């Protein structure tokens, strides 16, 4: 069964450093999302991406965040200057779109980011 993959599974970084989290969505999917989950809390929407541009972003997704689809398979989340409060599990998700109004969002296994 196709699945969303994410790398790395864990990342430790120093405050102020840049990090890039990588995702490979399911191959025929067209909408992509990043969510984050601070330990013990709910999953929160960060950004959605369609047709090579951001379609919606939350207030969490400030100027320190950016997303990119550099090629036909990867979808990346960059945090330019990490803060302690960026420590969280980051999930990538994707949907196929176009076949039904409401489709299953498939989530990757996540990248656990720890900012020291």
């Amino acid at each position: 069964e196709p699945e969303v993959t994410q790398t790395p599974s864990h990342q430790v970084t120093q405050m102020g450093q840049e990090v890039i989290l990588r995702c490979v969505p399911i191959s025929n999917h067209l909408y992509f999302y990043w969510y984050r989950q601070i330990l013990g809390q709910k999953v929160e929407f960060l950004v959605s991406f369609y047709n090579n541009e951001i379609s919606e972003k939350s207030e969490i997704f400030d100027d320190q965040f950016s997303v990119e689809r550099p090629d036909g398979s990867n979808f990346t989340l960059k945090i330019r200057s990490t803060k302690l409060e960026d420590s969280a599990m980051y999930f990538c998700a994707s949907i196929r779109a176009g076949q039904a109004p409401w489709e299953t969002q498939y989530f990757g296994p996540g990248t656990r980011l720890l900012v020291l």
Partner: protein
Amino acid sequence: QQQVKQSPQSLIVQKGGISIINCAYENTAFDYFPWYQQFPGKGPALLIAIRPDVSEKKEGRFTISFNKSAKQFSLHIMDSQPGDSATYFCAAASNFGNEKLTFGTGTRLTIIP
């Protein structure tokens, strides 16, 4: 208005019993209500979902009950099994929101023998 409230925060049920998790929403634009199951160290995985044009949806041991007028929906797990022990998140989405999911706060379910 975008919040989805979920209760209880944690739930312990005996094997074979019924697990019930409740959610409430405020935004009347929501029209898709999925439940996700998450095991430790894994991403959320869709369990079952409902649209507001029906009041109930059943898939195996899992049932969603939906009350549009009360803006509430719930997950019932019948004959709960130890393998059902996980965190469950309700969520909601709107056709006008690029299908982004707004999650509830989660319920940690433990099934004891």
